[in-house]
């Protein structure tokens, strides 16, 4: 590994300042599961790692704070803690399930929520250091290559899929991300945090240089029933072949509001608004679920080796909708005092 310095900041502001001082040669690091491997593979070459875990106790960055109006999760909360948190598991099951489905127990013990959301693509070509768009090149090798795991939506010009499991869950829950940077802080909706390659092909989100994803806030949703369904190509330690995050607010068995977001199909968590609209105001039946499945893949533009993702997504959406609607999951509304 190339030489690098570890820096332990004292506060979020200090961390931002250190990143700025690094002049592009410093990188923020949380659990390290992604970035450290990238450094070993020469996919990233920071001189300074600003270790955010030094901030665990400050700025509430490792806190899970359930409240009556919202749930706040610090960016440094590990996936293991998030998935095991009783309030999260009961009120925002999709988030607990998504966090618990990532990678392996060892990784979940150190991987942070912010790191999971900001991890780089796991496209084979990117990870093998092909000179693709993401590495400053001028093409996407997956488009004509081994694209079985690549995007069927939103692909051009890069066809990566967003690898985070937590991301579709948070988009489905209408979460907001608080970003802290040199210019202060700003809050963006989860759906607007992730960006398509046609906007900026070199990155996957709107984080500015030296900006840090500090925490995530999820609004309370009365009558919420939610789940995360992930299809893998082995049962552990793969990113989603495809996945769906479903968040249904129910009222007398009718869907008042639906969040339907796909993973593993696009360079961003892929919200299917047409399906959300379809479900609104209706009770989930076999035929409605089938229609939702069909609508979810409307407009898909698969590559030669990932056509199978189209029926896969269609079936997954239909099956997950039916099982969630019929699950009898307790849509607990109120927080215990």
């Amino acid at each position: 590994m190339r030489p690098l310095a570890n820096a332990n900041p004292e506060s979020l502001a200090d961390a931002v300042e250190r990143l700025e001082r690094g002049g592009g040669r410093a990188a923020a690091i949380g659990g390290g599961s992604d970035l450290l491997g990238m450094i070993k593979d020469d996919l990233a070459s920071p001189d300074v790692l600003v270790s955010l875990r030094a901030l665990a106790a400050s700025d509430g960055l490792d806190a899970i704070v359930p409240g009556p109006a919202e749930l706040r999760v610090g960016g440094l909360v590990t996936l293991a803690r998030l998935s095991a948190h009783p309030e999260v598991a009961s009120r925002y099951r999709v988030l607990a399930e998504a966090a618990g489905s990532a990678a392996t127990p060892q990784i979940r013990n150190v991987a942070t929520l912010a790191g999971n959301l900001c991890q780089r693509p796991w496209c084979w070509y990117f990870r093998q250091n092909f000179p693709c768009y993401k590495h400053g090149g001028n093409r996407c090798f997956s488009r004509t290559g081994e694209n079985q795991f690549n995007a069927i939506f939103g692909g051009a010009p890069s066809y990566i899929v967003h690898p985070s499991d937590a991301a579709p869950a948070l988009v489905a829950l209408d979460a907001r991300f608080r970003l802290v940077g040199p210019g202060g802080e700003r809050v963006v909706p989860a759906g607007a945090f992730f960006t398509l390659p046609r906007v900026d092909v070199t990155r996957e989100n709107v984080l500015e240089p030296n900006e840090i994803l500090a925490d995530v806030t999820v609004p309370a949703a009365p009558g919420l029933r939610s789940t995360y369904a992930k299809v893998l190509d082995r049962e552990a330690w793969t990113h989603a072949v495809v996945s769906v995050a479903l968040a249904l607010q129910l009222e007398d068995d009718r869907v008042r509001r639906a969040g339907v977001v796909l993973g593993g199909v696009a360079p961003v968590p892929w919200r299917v608004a047409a399906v959300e609209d379809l479900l609104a105001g209706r009770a989930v039946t076999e035929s409605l679920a089938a229609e939702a499945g069909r609508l979810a893949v409307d407009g898909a533009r698969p590559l030669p080796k990932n056509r199978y993702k189209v029926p896969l997504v269609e079936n997954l959406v239909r099956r997950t909708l039916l099982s969630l609607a019929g699950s009898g999951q307790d849509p607990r509304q109120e927080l215990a005092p």
Partner: protein
Amino acid sequence: MKSVSRRTFLKSSAAVTAATTLPSARAPLGAQSSPADSPPRSTITLTVNGVRRTVEVEDRWTLAELIRDHLDLTGTKIGCDRGECGACTVHLDGDPVYSCSQLAVWADGRAVSTVEGLADSGRLDPLQEAFVAGDGPQCGFCTSGQLMAARAVVAATPNPTEEEVREGMAGNICRCSNYNRYVAAVLGRPPERATARDPLSVVGQGRPRIDAVERVTGAARYTGDVKLPGMAYARVLRSPHPHARIAAIDTRRAREMPGVYAVLTRENCDTVWRSGDRQNPRYLFNNPVRFVGDPVAAVAAVDRHAAEAALQAIEVGYEPLDFVLDPEEALQPGAVEIQPGGNLSRRRDGEALPDVYQRGDVETGFDAADVVVEETYVSKHHSNAQMEPRSAVAHWEGDRLTLWTPTQGISNCRRDMAGDLGLPPEQVRVVCEYMGGGFGNKNQCQDADLIAALLAREAGRPVKLELTRKDDFLGVHGRWPTVQHYKAGAARDGTLQAIRLRGYSGMGPHRKSGGGIAGIELFRCPNVRREVSPVYTNMTVAANFRGPAYPQGVWGIESVMDQVAHELSIDPVDFHLRNLTRAFNDETPYTSWALRECLTEGADRFGWAARWRRAGTRAGPLRRGVGMAIGMFAARLGRSSAVLRLEGGRLFLHVGVTDIGTAAKTAMAQLAAEAMGMDLADVTVVWGDTDRCPYSVGESGSRTTTHTGHAILEAAEDLKRQMAATDGDGPIESRTLIAQATPEPVLDGLARYASAAHFTEVEVDTELGGIRVLEYLAMHESGRIVNPLTAESQVKGGVTMGIGMALHEELIYDRLTGIPVNPGYYGARVMTHLDAPEIEVRFIEPDDAYGPYGAKNVGEPPIIPVVAAIGNAVFNATGRRIRELPMTRDRVLEALA
């Protein structure tokens, strides 16, 4: 210029300081130094296995690096260095983490515990005891990580369910695939049956491995754990091109870097690695380079970071050449010539023609057939992916070389090393105390061994060469991919009339081993033509991997046979009973023939007759189906040696085994104890060192028990004669007697084979494309089973590994660039705890009077029928056959579309 940091005041020479010299205060802020001059360092205080330690570390060191290299706790292993395998699992404040993916500085102020901390003053932890009794470790390389993961599961949930155990251990890969054993041990379920059908006093008794304690405590020393004074670390620069001429190579900058001791390239090293290619000269550094991963240069430096930096400073000018990946394409006119003389590798007689086996006349047979099936099967490059990457430590004392290396055969490795280095064999000592699997890619010597030796000579100091996980996937070898075109015909009553195979094996650019496609010989058939072309391609080199020519070949032929049976509406088991081989190639009688018994007993036990229904008759999204397949593997006899030394009443058994994970050492000790009428506890095995052990055939071809076992029995006869002859010389404890034997037993013109029949039920999710193995029964005939406990582990592991080959694994190449895109455990989708079903194992034990106590072999047979059985079950469930491996969701859904 650096900003002010206490780091800059710390001496950079002493890696680890005494616990008292430095306070544990964190380094001051503002460490924005440029790392160009000396790598930034920090002083940290952490608790390791309960002991508080203050150490100075380089900021870039991983926790694994600190623990292994600087705290000398080598029980923690590095299998991938990327958080993809789990071998490096330790606890950080009680939680399991991958220590390869944590920086050591991040452990400041925290508590680390490793496998060495599990045993309490020599008393094993209950989990360690359960792993010993339940045969958890095979090769043992993943075991420390498995233990640490299991420890966390049990700490969180004192009485976990099976699901909780599997979930908790999901991040720990075991390539020996002993998942069933690990889970059972954690659940406190002792092995069910551990006795052979007809046990003798030691042979036939299920015994824990004689070295099991070493394997569960981290005490077992693997090559990577060897550390010598002044030792340098080496790395290999590899070609990024599938085929290119090296126009220029400039190593000047690398040589001038501080801490660099030696640089080798083709310009200063023209050593030929003869066991790396049996037909063409394969240099350690080739020009042209012929596959991505072909070594271009090697560097030895003061530490591995310096070696890596030096690699990056080597400038290589490549002139890319055309390349070809597919074996059939490689034989097309106009294809780029990879080796002089063309891409068809020559036969033994030197002719550039396919290997042909023929009996009868297939055209006559097809004319006589009522049903003819013509199909093509495509199998892929399948990486051995053993947990321990190839590594070597070379140390010269004058003209004498000592080489620590994970090899399946110390004798062969020494012979090859000496030959390639131009030394008399006695000038080379090869040591392999423990090795972390291999499955065929640690046969004989590897280029890494030679490179380490040459670097050490050049550097004038010991050198440790470690292949990275990616190096190991690309630079060693995997199973050869094949294209198999079959035509088979049978009469209406199901009797086979003719089988024809035209097959192509992609060997990569070197002929390292056979390249056959085996399996047709499992069937009796009057007319057979098998034509196989081993072809040079620009993929990574392919050679031996567990049952080398069989799993892919048996998948092809057994799928075709299943199809023939289907078209004739005959139950596959009945079809097999009608067409089973009775003599090898319908010609050479077997010493014993239990294939029919495997099939009938297995079918009964599985309930085949009641469960089999015609293919494609299931409906619904989840469709279940059953499948079966058979397999055989040669259990030949041959030359090997053993020395028995009786001293002080104790029996010392000197055998040149290394124990790749099969429990070979234990089996050898059992055979010796049985032959001498002693207890297993009275036998000490001396192994794995050419200075202390006689010739051994090597642990390849599943030969150890039959070859070396024979030598033990013969030496024991001699020793007993000596004991009788010296009977009057006082008590046995006072005599030292030595016997040795190097027999060459023969088979009297017979064929000797182990047999197997496998039965499985799978569930295919026709909507999501997933295949789940619900039930698996492996019926095996391997003669008498020497150690039923460890033999059953072998079968469970072989089957599980085969399931991975069937469902997940493939080294995938980008067609445009010829670069592999998924080397490593993450990309290869190697089986995990969550993928591994329970494998039921049964042995049939005839005694053919040929092997030691009638023993045959167990290592390779289990993987042979697996892909075929699963493929046939998928066909039975869905009515669709997947003719390209692996059977991933994309292929399942496309087949069903």
